[in-house]
C-alpha cells in the first residue's frame, strides 16, 4: 500500500505523525473517518482508516455489495443483490449531539449478526433511523429501525406495495411512502407514489409521477425522481405528505432517474441525460433548476457534507469535477484515472465517489486503489491500494469531544448529529 500524502488534512497529518488512527488534541477533540469499500467481484467489505490509510478490517459477506450508510453513521448496510442478502456493519463511529458540540465514540467496526434475506434486494432507504429495504420480487416492503439492527434484535414490519415491482419506499415512524406499480405491466417503472401505513391502509390521494426511479434525502426532505419532475416528501403532522414539483419548462427534454441530496444546504442533484446533471433547489420552485453540462458522460456523483457549496462528479474520461451548486458551474476538474467508458453493462466496475472529512475519495476498481483528493485545494493528495477491485464506497466519521473513561455518560433524549447521506442506484 502506498501511504497517502499526508496533506489530506492538517488533522490527518497530526494523526499520522502521532502514529494513531484516531487523534486527540489537548481539548480532547477527536477526529475519526473510516472508508467502507466493497469489491466488485468478491464478497468483501474493506474498512480503511481514512486518516492514515491503514486497512482496519476486511469483512467477509455473502456476495459483492452496494453500500449504504445510515444518516447517523453508526451503521453501514451491504446490499448484495446477487447473493440475496443484506448485511449490517457497525461502523464503530458514533456521535451524540449536544447542540454546540457532539461527543464521539470510536470503536472497532463489526459485522453484525443480523441479516435480511430475500431474492433481489434492491433499493435501500434510511430516514431518521427507519430503514426501508425493498426486494424486487416481493409485494411488501420491509421496514425496521437502525436501533434494532444495532441491538441485533431485528423486528421487521411490512407495508403493502400493491404488486411486486422495481420501486422504492421511504420510511416514516408509522407510515411508508411507496411507489405505485405500473397497472399495465408491473415490470415497467412505477407510475407514482402513495402513503400507506402498516395496517394495509392508504392515506390520502395517490400522486402521479410516471417513470419513477431514484430517491434521495436532503435534511428532512426526501425526493423521488420521475419523468415529469420530483416528488417531494415531508412530514406533515402525523403522516408524510407528497408534493409534485414539475421540471422547469425551460429545461430541455429529459428527466432524472438517480438522485443524491445535499447536506448543510437543502438541494438535490440528479442525472439529466448521460452527460448533464440537474441541480434542484426545491424552495425556488420553477426557478430552482440548474443544468450543468459535463465534458463527457457521468459515472458517479456525490455531495460534500463538509463544504456544502460543492458536489463532485466523476466522468468517463477519468476526471473528477468540483461543481459549485450555487452557481451551477464546474469550478475545477482533476484527472484521476484512466478512462472508464460508460458503454457496456451498467454494473461494470467503474469509480465511485465519497467524501471523508478533508478528502474526496474515488475508487479505481481496475487499478485496485483509492484516489485521495484534498477537498479544500482540489489537488491530488495520495492513494491507498486495495486488493481486488474496490468499487462501492461510503465514508463515516467526523470530529467530536471524547470523554475517555467517563462511565455512564447520559445521552438520553439527545438528538443525533446527522451527516452525509444520499441514495444512489446507478443503472441508468
Amino acid at each position: 500500500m502506498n501511504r497517502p500524502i499526508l496533506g489530506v488534512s492538517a488533522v490527518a497529518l497530526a494523526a499520522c505523525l502521532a502514529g494513531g488512527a484516531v487523534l486527540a488534541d489537548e481539548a480532547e477533540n477527536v477526529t475519526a473517518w473510516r472508508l467502507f469499500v466493497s469489491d466488485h467481484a468478491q464478497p468483501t467489505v474493506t474498512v480503511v482508516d481514512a486518516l492514515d490509510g491503514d486497512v482496519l478490517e476486511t469483512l467477509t459477506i455473502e456476495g459483492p455489495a452496494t453500500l449504504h450508510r445510515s444518516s447517523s453513521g453508526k451503521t453501514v448496510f451491504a446490499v448484495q443483490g446477487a447473493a440475496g442478502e443484506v448485511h449490517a456493519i457497525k461502523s464503530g463511529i458514533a456521535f451524540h449531539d449536544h447542540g454546540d458540540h457532539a461527543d464521539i465514540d470510536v470503536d472497532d467496526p463489526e459485522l453484525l449478526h443480523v441479516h435480511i434475506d430475500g431474492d433481489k434486494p434492491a433499493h435501500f432507504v434510511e430516514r431518521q433511523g427507519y430503514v426501508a429495504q425493498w426486494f424486487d420480487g416481493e409485494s411488501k416492503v420491509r421496514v425496521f429501525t437502525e436501533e434494532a439492527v444495532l441491538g441485533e434484535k431485528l423486528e421487521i414490519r411490512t407495508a403493502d406495495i400493491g404488486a411486486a415491482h422495481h420501486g422504492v419506499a421511504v420510511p416514516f415512524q408509522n407510515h411508508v411512502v411507496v411507489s405505485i406499480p405500473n397497472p399495465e405491466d408491473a415490470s415497467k417503472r412505477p407510475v407514482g407514489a402513495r402513503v400507506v401505513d402498516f395496517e394495509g391502509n392508504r392515506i390520502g390521494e395517490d400522486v402521479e409521477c410516471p417513470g419513477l426511479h431514484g430517491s434521495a434525502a436532503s435534511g428532512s426532505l426526501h425526493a423521488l425522481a420521475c419523468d415529469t419532475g420530483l416528488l417531494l416528501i415531508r412530514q406533515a403532522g402525523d403522516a408524510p405528505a407528497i408534493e409534485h414539483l414539475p421540471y422547469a419548462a425551460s429545461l430541455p427534454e429529459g428527466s432524472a432517474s438517480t438522485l443524491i441530496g445535499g447536506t448543510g444546504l437543502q438541494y438535490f442533484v440528479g442525472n439529466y441525460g448521460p452527460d448533464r446533471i440537474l441541480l434542484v433547489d426545491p424552495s425556488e420552485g420553477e426557478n430552482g433548476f440548474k443544468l450543468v453540462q459535463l465534458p463527457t458522460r457521468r459515472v458517479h456523483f456525490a455531495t460534500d457534507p463538509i463544504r456544502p457549496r460543492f458536489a463532485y462528479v466523476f466522468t468517463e474520461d477519468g476526471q473528477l469535477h468540483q461543481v459549485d451548486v450555487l452557481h451551477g458551474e464546474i469550478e475545477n476538474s482533476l484527472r484521476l484515472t484512466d478512462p472508464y467508458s460508460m458503454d457496456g453493462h451498467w454494473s461494470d466496475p467503474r469509480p465511485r465517489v465519497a467524501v471523508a472529512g478533508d478528502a474526496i475519495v474515488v475508487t479505481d476498481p481496475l487499478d485496485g486503489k483509492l484516489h485521495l483528493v484534498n477537498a479544500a485545494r482540489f489537488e491530488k493528495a495520495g492513494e491507498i491500494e486495495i486488493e481486488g477491485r474496490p468499487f462501492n464506497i461510503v465514508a463515516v466519521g467526523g470530529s467530536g469531544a471524547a470523554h475517555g473513561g467517563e462511565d455512564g455518560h447520559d445521552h438520553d433524549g439527545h438528538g443525533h448529529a446527522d451527516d452525509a447521506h444520499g441514495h444512489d442506484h446507478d443503472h441508468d
Partner: protein
Amino acid sequence: MKKPFSLVAGLIVITFIIFGLPARAQAQKLSVVATFSIIGDFAAKVGGDRIELKTLVGPDSDAHVYEPRPADAIALARADVVLVNGLMFEGFLSRLIEASGTSAPVAELTEGAEILRDPEGGHYHYQGGRAVFHEAPYDAHAWQSVANAKVYVRNIARAFCAADAEGCAIYDANARTYLDELAALDEEIRQAVAAIPADRRVAVVAHNAFRYFEHEYGVTFLAPQGVSTESEASAADVASLIREIREKRAAAVFAENIADARLVEQIAREAALSLGGTLYSDALSQPDGPAATYAAMMRHNSSTIGAALAAD
C-alpha cells in the same frame, strides 16, 4: 448579566465606525438578510423603504432546525448586511455563511442585551413526536423581553448606518419612532400581567422559550425536559411534570406556533387543565394571523396568557 462575548464562531461582528463609509446610490437599496421572522420585522421597521429585505426562516417556522437552501446562500452572498440573533440560536448559520462566501458584516443583535444563562444548559424542541435537545449555555430567546427588543432595534440602526451612511438619519428616525412604540408595548404587557391574580401566574409550555418573559414580567413557565411523545419513558416523564404542575399550581397549558401540539395536549389531559391557546415563541404568524409583527406577537401572547391564567 450582560452578554460576555460573541457566541457565533467565525462571524464578522461589525464594528460601528461611522467615518469613511461607502455612500450608497440613492436608487440602490441596502440589501439586508435577516435570519428569522422576528428580527426581519425589526429590520423592516428600521429600514423602511431604504432596504431590500430577505428573511430566511419565515412565519411559523423554527430557526433551531431550519435547513438552509442554495437560494439562502446566494442571498447572503449578495447582502450588504446580515442580521442574526446569535447565542447559538441559528445553528445553520456558520455553515451557511461559509457556503455563501459572503463578505457582508454580520450584526449579532443580542450584543449588549441582558442575557440569561440557561439553567438547564439547553432546552428541548419537539419535532415529529421526538424531543431534540439544543445545548447552549445562554438562553437565546432574548426578544421575549421588550427591553431586549429595544437593544436589537438599536443594533440594527447602527448596522444600517455603518453600511449606508447616507441613510443613517432615516434609520435613526425610524428606530426612535419604533422604540417609542416598544416602550408603550412594554407597559401594556405589564398591565396585562398585573391583571392576573398573583397566585395564578404559572403556565405550562412544551418548549421553554419564555424565560425572558418570565424574568421581565413575572409569569412562571414550566416546560418538560426530554419528554417525547414516541418514547417509552414519556409516561413517567409526563407524570413527573404533572406533579410539578400540581405543586406549583399551574393554571393553563399553552401550545406554540412552532411546536408539535400533541405533547401539550397530552399534558393538559393528564393535568386536567385546559389548553389556553397558542403562543408565538420563535416566529411570527402568517401575515393574516394574530402575530404578524413583533408588537402584535407580544400583545397576543400577553393577552392569551392573561385570559387563560385569570380564568377560573
